[in-house]
């Protein structure tokens, strides 16, 4: 299974979760886990998603970044392995 972590940070307001998850739904990407928290004034959300079925992830990443701009939040996309190599021995 190929998985990725999508991180969303920014000022909290309504519609962030809905906006991002609808982009994922449109690409047929399943959300495996989701966590969100408020750190200071900043909204932080991390989504673990299954991207096994996507042959090319470029359109998804582009659409996510576009949605981030619309929602005025910062969206990052990284394959899961990069976190694993950095944080697990």
């Amino acid at each position: 299974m190929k998985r990725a972590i999508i991180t969303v940070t920014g000022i909290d307001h309504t519609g962030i979760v809905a906006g991002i998850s609808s982009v994922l739904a449109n690409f047929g990407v399943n959300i495996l886990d989701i966590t969100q928290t408020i750190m200071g004034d900043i909204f932080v959300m991390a989504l673990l998603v299954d991207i096994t079925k996507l042959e090319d992830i470029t359109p998804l990443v582009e659409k996510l970044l576009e949605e981030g701009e619309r929602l005025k939040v910062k969206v990052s996309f990284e394959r899961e392995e990069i976190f694993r190599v950095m944080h697990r021995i």
Partner: protein
Amino acid sequence: MIFTTEEILETIRMIQIEHLDIRTVTLGVDLLDCRRDSVDETIKRLREKLLNATEGFLDTIKRVELEYGIPIVNKRIAITPASLLISSLDVEDYIHLAKELDKLALDVGLDFIGGYTCFLEYEVSSTDKVFLKSIPIILNETERLCASIVTATTKAGINLDAIRESSYVILETARIKARPIVCAKLIVLCNPPGDNPFMAGAFHGIKRGERVINVGISGPGTIRSAIERLPKDADILSIVEEIKRVSFKITRSGEFIGKEIASRLGINSVSVDISLAPTPEEGDSVARIIERIGVETFGAPGTTGLLFLLNDALKKGCLMASSSVGGLSGTFVPVSEDKGIAEAVGKGVLTLEKLESLTNVCSVGLDMIPIPGDISPYTLMGIILDEMAIGVMHNKTTAVRILPVPGGKPGEWVELGGLLGRAPIISVNSTPCIDIFKRGGRIPPPLTSYRN
């Protein structure tokens, strides 16, 4: 969630705020099998081979960059040293080869091509002299080709004749178009590794395989931020431990990205160079790390000691992270490319002599230093000789990449642009040192080279 929010945010912060990136992915390509009876046929064959070897290279890098979210700044190739590919007494043959290599880099879309290299540590042959004659011409007439001259190794000792030739090559390279930036593509080396991903000294070493991926990571900003997050009065061991932790993480990410690119290109061999490579970006500076640990300005007494601490802690962290560590793997002190280092020279705190002493404890040498263009060739030879001696004696790589500025006076700032940054022209001790180079010959290797 399999990772904590803090872990996820730490990675994101390192990339987005602290400038963690893959500074370079350099594809090493063996070209020894391209040698033919005629120069034209050799060039034709190596062009075909390089086009074939680089197929899919840039696309793969682009995809990996997008998927893993880590920027990959430079895409380069390093070839078998050009002086081994053709052997000629006609300088036009070398110029032809150089121009073809430069054109190929442009056609493929590479930032640089390294390996216009010759090995002079034992002797300067008649064809070497022709090769050396071509260097100032080709560096001024091409954009992407980098040249290097090996003048010393621990095994061979130091070839004074090679140093003399190198000094004239550097000065002629600077003179032709009076553009100091051209000399940024030229380096004089001692004990060079054959898997260095960084320019100008990258070449593909003999018997290092058909194709290899050499990755250079960059992370001074991540180290500086990590130290800044420690309490102001943290003891020295806490600083060492923190550097090791961050070094581990950046090495693991670099190795992973290198292996991912290699496996997609069907390449087995990966080498990770963990050198801390600064950029002119605010905060992405080796000087700022040292200043944060404990000196007012980089270059003050104590700087050599702290650079030793930094370099050693880095290595300990990275060796735990990867068994593929190679290349230079030191700490770079390139004057123009590091805002803090350039400022220290501007203030008169950091001198050429202190920069030389720093190379005793870290790679890689006197790097990206503007000097007055009217320097005596002999003084430049003396500077190179001292740097080579440090490398030979310590069995490590050292290098001289110095930028003579025609008409330039000490203290004047030189703009090099982009990642090459800007720096003041440094003062040079011009006390004569002529006789040693009039004697010529080779200083024998040190006792430490006789290990059997």
